[in-house]
């Protein structure tokens, strides 16, 4: 009973400051303001993911309903800046796994303005009664997805890998290959 009360309180507190984002389809011309970055994330999990909460310059909740779309990607936009993925809500808005950066896992992302910021494939594996949560770098899958579904978008904006951590120069390398063609 107590747990229920705590959860309700959390939801009330969050609802005051969390902006919900929506998924853009290819039919819409995604043209964010100059201080915004286009954000691309894939949900890659057998466990139903309701949403992710990003905390940074603002707090955003990124909902995703796999059944409404023909793919598992979310394409949206954020104000540029550094965010931490702080919660993964699973099954419904009432259950979540606490995340946040610590010495074992880095949940930071750096959204750059006027770029298509791929931040990773968000993955939850249920192991026994617990969960292994990680965000994988599957840049090639994201690139192929965007080339197929958001051609116009990646023509107008440079695609970059925006997960915080060691540099990944793969996309820059692909650009250099274009120069050689």
């Amino acid at each position, binding site marked *: 009973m107590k747990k229920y009360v705590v959860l309700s309180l959390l939801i009330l507190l969050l609802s005051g400051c969390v902006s919900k984002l929506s998924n853009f389809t290819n039919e819409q011309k995604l043209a964010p303001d100059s201080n915004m970055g286009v954000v691309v994330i894939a949900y890659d999990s057998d466990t139903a993911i309701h949403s992710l909460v990003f905390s940074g310059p603002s707090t955003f909740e990124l909902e995703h309903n796999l059944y409404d779309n023909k793919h598992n990607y979310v394409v949206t936009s954020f104000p540029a800046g550094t965010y931490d993925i702080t919660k993964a809500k699973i099954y419904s808005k009432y259950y979540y796994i606490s995340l946040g950066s610590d*010495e074992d*896992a880095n949940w930071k992302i750096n959204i750059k303005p006027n770029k298509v910021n791929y931040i990773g494939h968000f993955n939850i594996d249920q192991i026994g009664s617990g969960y292994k949560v990680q965000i*994988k*770098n599957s*840049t090639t899958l994201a*690139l192929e997805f965007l080339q197929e579904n958001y051609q116009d978008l990646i023509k107008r904006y440079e695609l970059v890998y925006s997960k915080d951590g*060691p540099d990944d120069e*793969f996309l820059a390398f*692909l650009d250099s290959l274009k120069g050689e063609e």
Partner: protein
Amino acid sequence: MKLKFASLLFVLLVTFTANSSEFIPANQMFVSDQYQSFAISPDGETLLGKSFIDGYQQLFAFSAGSKQAAEVFKITTSDRKRILDYDWLDKDTAYVSFLGTFNTYYIRIIDFTFKDNDFEIDYYDVRGLGVLVNPMLGVEDKALLAKLNAKDKKLDLLELDLSKLRNIKHNSKNHKKIFSTFRNLSEDLEDTYKFYVSDSTYELEMIGQSYDDYNTYSVYDSKTGSWKEFFRVNKNTSEEKNYSKLDVFTPITKVDDRHIVALSNINRDKVAVVLFDIEAKKDVKTLYESEYYDVKSAAYSRKQKKLISVSYADRGLNKQKFLDKGSNDFQSELVKKIGLESVFIIDRSVTGSDYVIFAHDASNPGRFYHYNVASNKLRFLQSSMPDLYPYTFTKANILTTTNDLGNKVEGFLYTGGSTKKMPMVVMPHGGPIGVQDLNEFDREVQFLVNRGFAVLTINFRGSSGYGKKYMSAGREQFGKGIEADINKLVNKAISLTAIDSDKVCIYGKSYGGYSAITSTILYPGTYKCAISGFGVFDLPLLYSASNLHHSEDVKDAISFVVGDIDTKYAELKENSPLYKANKINVPTLLFAGRNDEIAHPEHSRRLNYVLNTIGKVDVEYHEYLHSGHGHPNWVGDRHQLITIVSFLNKHINPGLSLTEKNKSVISDDYYLLGLIYYDGHYLKKDHDKAEKYFRLAHSNGNENAAKYLRRLGIYDF
């Protein structure tokens, strides 16, 4: 419970003549060992065997000398269910630890009642995860079992009293009640993962403990009544490291109040058997050390106060070496009788009257024997893979070279005794640190040899088994010294008359995949094609493949082998074949597992994408939907190896003239590939590939393929 007896399959190996040119179907080669182990009862009268046939793990028992065995335990291997351990507790009681339904662990106690040449069994199951530590053969109805205490999250070392468990109503409540009366030898010990028990007093005398930041070994000091730690190794990267990651220290037994016997390479190069002084905390005497190889295991007799045997991989072959002349002569006699190079005594009766022997080498996956000392009779029990008996397999020739560091590099060349020049597949192993290729039966190697390809495996610098310096020499040698070692031995192999130097490809898994692709860049002209399974091609990506790789522990583990990302980013990139893909000039075949957490499939996806973008060479990519860093079952291996053989035939064809029987085997292989693409479970459903392989299967005589072609709506075949 009265048992039905069935004839044992003991009389094989006599009627068939082997034909070395007969192809082995992939679905016969890529299967688990059917017979996995045997254990003899303390009195030497009864044998227990473990088999894995048709999806069931089974234990069967038979009287020594009998030709009939009865099943005493059986479990399907679906849903992770399996046998974890089994052994005799005394002459008429055995135990089985297994994972049963609903992911629940059980311990089954099986009581045997012997009558004439027959027996009956009675059994009961106790819930819990337990492993036998010592059967206490000198005490009736007692045994020491390490049992997981789920509540306190620790292992309890319990002294079972089986007499208390008989003649009760078997249910959880009663079991719990009776188990609570058993003496717990490790009641006050936490985080203990290893128990060492005296064979004479059955008291706990040495323990291994694992904590968050360090591991320890301690001995029990009977004078003070407390545990005395004598060895500690720090795990935490933030603390000062007292030992290298390559150091080995494994206690074998306590000798007296001051000494233990251990396997150790601390302050020495090779892993040796040492007498370790627990007060001085250092080894004081070397009991056995090989000049060339690391010792892998040893047996020491406290009663005789001497080392009985050691084992190590001698020129790639794991061997048990006895240190007294009598036993050594006996073993040589067994080697001669059995005709296989490696002979291990894997179990013996308490009286020493009977042995269970396992013999194997590169040409044979293994055979089990029962030996009776009094009669000097050696009786064949079973082959580990009896279905392979019609086929012959090949032993390796040892090739060696000396690298630029002055180290001897060993390799194993399998040619299958062909009289004409053979195309060759070079197979660098994974790792690269701490892994060793052996000159023992290997399904992939033998399958490729069977299909007409010579195979070369190489223990390049970094491989285990040759000492710490050799292993350490492989660190941060991606694209450098390791590939130089491989190249040197490859050059030696292709200078041999048996090898067609114009037909050489390179295939490896994990690090071997990296090495295969990199070698084609570093040594252009040597290879006609390259194959990688679960490979890494973008070294900085090792650090950014997942956010979990950003932790200091993971970074530390990767940098130990590959090099530090913070200080050596440019070097890592420079040694990544992905960023030099324009120098890859040979057809390339890539395999990856979607769930691979070691070599993330992104490595292979990137290389596939870049090679396709450059468009200079043919590239073929297969991503298994349910595989990790390897396959969860044999179907993946079958697909992978059939695809590899097909790819190799395209680029370095051995030019074999095919018999009708071999055509039939090939048609079955293609049929299997057709089914995999048709079904879409292991790989993405692919109508075109399914059609292609069903057509190939049908044209080679497989009639079942026609049925599936029609299901695909295809009638012109």
